[in-house]
């Protein structure tokens, strides 16, 4: 199994390890709900080094990245980040990713670990004609996410860079400890926080993670695993590739119209998306709550008007808002707030209703 540079720290901190797409990573340390709620109230630190880092470099880097994405990359300036789809020719998802503009000739794409090889192959072949270079440098980078209302207080103890002035979805090239790092004000939890990318050996990375956990204690910040990462992102209605978005649902159907900029010029998937925008969608990803007792889970069958229509794409009992919630594709005419349908749980039909999303939104 693949190990991140932080691997030994997970064992040291009592992480419960699992095989996550070939990576030996902690699903939890002290407990999923405890970690989830710590991130909502104080903070958590996560090893997310499995994420993929792809660099696009060259004179036509902007044109190349524009061509493979749905969002408008020309809106970026150096130091700014955009969330976008990596669409296929049908306007569905090969992946979703963050685009970091380093200079007008260099962009960093941060992609899902499980899709890295597929993405790299796709991107390399599609940007070839722009004469840019594509580098998969995922193995070089360690990535730590510090998330939660106290994240800034913790990170300021580790850097002299002006992170308090860093706005959401901006990054800077700075230092954490003595290590050169990309410090990014982003995250996958619905809280304020940072994602830090750096190159280091195992000892330095593990020591830093343990040091963050140690100094985090006074701020109520604890190490958190993949379990909490999943429930936190779901409570904040952030899509997960493979669950909520995939290569058979379009950007519009996924209700991610805000990352679709049809007027930006040509890009892969534009034609079918333009057509769908004109004609309208027939199904849509919505958030729901169960109105009866039970917990919806990924893959459970969903019935609309008594007929099997789809499956729950993501579901859990949300640890902070204390409700059974999930996401599902519903027919457009059944997707309005309050609309009722059923989820089959161990052979029983349990009633659910469409609700406003995100399920949780931070107050500040």
């Amino acid at each position: 199994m693949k190990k991140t540079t932080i691997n030994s720290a997970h064992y040291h901190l009592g992480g419960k390890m699992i095989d996550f797409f070939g990576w030996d990573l902690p699903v939890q340390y002290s407990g999923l709900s405890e970690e989830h709620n710590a991130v909502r109230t104080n903070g958590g630190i996560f090893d997310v080094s499995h994420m993929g880092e792809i660099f696009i470099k060259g004179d036509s880097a902007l044109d190349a990245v524009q061509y493979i994405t749905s969002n408008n990359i020309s809106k970026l300036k150096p130091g700014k980040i955009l969330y976008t789809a990596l669409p296929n020719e049908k306007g569905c998802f090969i992946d979703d990713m963050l685009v970091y503009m380093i200079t007008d000739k260099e962009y960093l794409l941060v992609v899902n670990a499980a899709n890295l090889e597929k993405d790299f192959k796709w991107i390399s072949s599609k940007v070839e004609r722009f004469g840019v270079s594509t580098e998969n440098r995922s193995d070089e980078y360690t990535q730590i996410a510090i998330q939660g209302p106290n994240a800034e207080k913790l990170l300021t103890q580790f850097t002299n860079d002006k992170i308090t002035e860093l706005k959401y979805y901006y990054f800077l090239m700075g230092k954490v400890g003595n290590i050169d790092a990309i410090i990014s004000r982003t995250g996958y939890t619905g809280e304020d926080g940072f994602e830090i990318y750096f190159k280091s050996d195992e000892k330095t990375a593990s020591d830093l993670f343990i040091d963050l956990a140690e100094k985090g204690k006074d701020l109520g910040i604890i190490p958190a695993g993949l379990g909490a990462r999943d429930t936190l992102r779901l409570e904040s209605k952030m899509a997960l590739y493979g669950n909520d978005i995939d290569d058979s649902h379009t950007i519009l159907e996924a209700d991610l119209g805000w990352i679709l900029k049809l007027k930006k010029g040509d890009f892969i998937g534009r034609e079918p998306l333009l057509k769908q925008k004109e004609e309208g969608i027939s199904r849509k990803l919505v958030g729901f709550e169960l109105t009866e007792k039970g917990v919806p889970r990924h893959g459970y069958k969903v019935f609309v008007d008594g007929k099997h229509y789809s499956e729950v794409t993501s579901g859990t009992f949300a640890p902070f808002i204390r409700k059974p919630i999930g996401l599902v594709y519903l027919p457009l005419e059944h997707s309005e707030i309050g609309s009722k349908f059923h989820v089959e749980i161990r052979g029983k039909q349990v009633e659910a209703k469409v609700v406003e999303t995100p399920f949780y939104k931070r107050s500040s």
Partner: protein
Amino acid sequence: MDLKNYKFSKDHEWVKLEDDMAVIGVSDYAQKEMGDVVYIELPETGSSFSEGDTCSNIESVKAVNDIFTPLSGEVVEVNTSLEDTPENINTDPYGSGWIFKIKISDSAELTDLLDADQYEEYLKGI
């Protein structure tokens, strides 16, 4: 906690005998493994099960967990207070977190169960 009156299955349920009845719940190890319990589907009073049958489901944030009855028999009582306070399974697994009571139909099955010391040894090997 003194567990000398408790017996355990390898599936991490506990049994406490009360004459020809057995009170059944899940062990402290099991509740820790499940994590934050949010909902329980209790067996129906009057239903009969054979040893090893799934008779209840406990939903934690993490996953749904099957509960197997370690003894055959008829369910004579269920802990309905868990419907409102399922978290008692986490906070008091050997007390207010009990799940159901069964009228034992085959007392020979009791010999398959482990006592507290044997169970502790068994956990070390997991």
